[in-house]
């Protein structure tokens, strides 16, 4: 059954702040930069914004939650931008990831709760060692992991990828193809942290281990900055500065798990399918209709799991599917055309959405996929949580 909201809401503006490792400005100031840029891009004024949504989660436990410095909440943006005097709706969510905040905005527009929605994702890059465990008493589930030195999400991803390699016969040679392809795309993306830094396969194999079998370049690059989007209805979108990108469908990961203790690879297909099946059924489109795929890559293997769970290839086939130029810009399914989180920067999926909009509105410049008509953006890891959008050129 197709979704009645298909093509009725749009993304009409994109704004990037500077993305850097150690900015001079506060995260709050960067976020206001991104919001103003998104409004400017749409050709709207701040006073027209009467809806707000974000997913403000800190990048890891212990990274801090000081508003305007380490996170940027709805409250912060309301207080620091001259928005509509009577804001009609907002949402600050904790589940999904950033596509879920966009989904909230879409539903608010469909419900006529508001007219113009600003959605942003601000990411803080704490000083000190990224992801360091703080505190010597491990509460909750962590008490069964931290005493063994297993506290970081990348250690879980490392174990999942180890298992994948064992099960299907993949190697790091296969993964190198994906990581270097992403970097080639980032080298065409002026917003990317690694815009001017190329990467060869030799560079990839020379990188230090983080948690074997994952090396430094299998991990996304933490940045501090913000990306913002402006959403409105299809009717209101027609007179704005750029052609609108239509929201054709959405999905969230709704799989049930008995244990959240670990990243077992065993349920990634059904878990990811719980999201992807809704993407395809709501939009009436399928993987074969996608001109490109922007698939979450907080750690490089996640994109491979998504290729399988979303049906771009069969289970256990992604590591072969990505070879031979198939996912390059000129290939049959360009993947992470902007460089992904690995090479653009860690924005928890917001870059994936922004790029999908760029592609279907012919604004991706040197990395433009010709006549891109439909692109999907999916965030999260299929075995955990996440959300996604199908974004199209036509309603």
């Amino acid at each position: 059954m197709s979704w009645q909201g298909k093509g009725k809401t749009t993304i009409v503006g994109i704004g990037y702040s500077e993305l850097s490792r150690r900015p001079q400005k506060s995260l709050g100031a960067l976020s206001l930069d991104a919001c103003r840029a998104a409004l400017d891009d749409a050709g709207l004024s701040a006073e027209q914004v009467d809806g707000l949504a974000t997913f403000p989660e800190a990048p890891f436990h212990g990274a801090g939650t000081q508003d305007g410095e380490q996170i940027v909440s709805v409250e912060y943006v309301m207080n620091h931008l001259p928005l509509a005097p009577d804001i009609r709706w907002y949402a600050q969510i904790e589940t999904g990831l950033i596509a879920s905040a966009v989904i909230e905005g879409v539903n608010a527009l469909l419900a006529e709760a508001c007219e113009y929605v600003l959605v942003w994702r601000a990411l803080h890059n704490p000083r000190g060692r990224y992801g360091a465990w703080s505190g010597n008493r491990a509460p909750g589930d962590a008490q069964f992991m931290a005493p063994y030195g297993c506290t970081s999400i990348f250690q879980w991803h490392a174990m999942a990828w180890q298992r994948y390699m064992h099960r299907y016969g993949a190697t790091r040679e296969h993964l190198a193809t994906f990581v270097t392809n992403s970097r080639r795309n980032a080298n065409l993306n002026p917003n990317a942290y690694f815009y001017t830094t190329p990467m060869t396969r030799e560079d990839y194999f020379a990188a230090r281990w983080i948690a074997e079998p994952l090396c430094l370049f299998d991990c996304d690059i933490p940045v501090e900055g913000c990306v913002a989007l402006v959403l409105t209805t299809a009717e209101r979108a027609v007179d704005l500065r750029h052609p609108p990108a239509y929201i054709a469908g959405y999905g969230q990961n709704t799989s049930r798990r008995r244990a959240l203790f670990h990243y077992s690879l065993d349920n990634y297909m059904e878990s990811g399918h719980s999201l992807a099946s809704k993407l395809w059924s709501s939009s009436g489109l399928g993987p074969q209709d996608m001109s490109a795929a922007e698939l979450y890559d907080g750690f490089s293997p996640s994109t491979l799991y998504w290729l399988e769970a979303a049906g771009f290839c069969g289970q256990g086939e992604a590591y072969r599917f990505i070879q031979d130029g198939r996912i390059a810009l000129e290939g049959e399914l360009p993947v992470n055309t902007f460089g992904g989180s690995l090479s653009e920067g860690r924005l928890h999926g917001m870059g994936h959405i922004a790029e999908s909009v760029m592609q279907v509105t012919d604004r991706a410049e040197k990395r433009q996929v010709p006549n891109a008509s439909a692109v999907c953006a999916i965030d999260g890891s299929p075995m955990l949580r996440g959300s996604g959008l199908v974004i199209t050129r036509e309603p």
Partner: protein
Amino acid sequence: MATAREKPRPLIDNLTRPFWEAAREHRLVIQRCQDCRYFNHPPRSVCNACHSAALTFEPVSGRGTIYSFSVMYQPNVAGFGDELPYLNILVELEEQPQLFLVSNLSEVQREQVRIGGQVEVYFEDVDAELTLPKFRLIA
């Protein structure tokens, strides 16, 4: 080794106390549902499988297989600096699919570790208050 004393310790709570108290006695116990017999780990107040609250701890064999492993190179966790790089294994206990415990694998070369390898529990007395169940390869 000075830094080993800085390693994180469990913040034991009412749900997890039976697990750690048994470990002090060098016994491995896992919370089990008395209605559907599902093992829940980490312990829960409601069964993950059937949502019953009739949960008690039962001894398990302490035997399992290596479901996966990784080698940690980052000094992210206090007290582990001297041991870098160190091995983490995810042990699937023989009692139930996907019943996992995390462990280190000490004094083992990286090349000796393989998925599917057989392991058994042993108990490392950290000090008077804490014993950690750990796993080693079965020869």
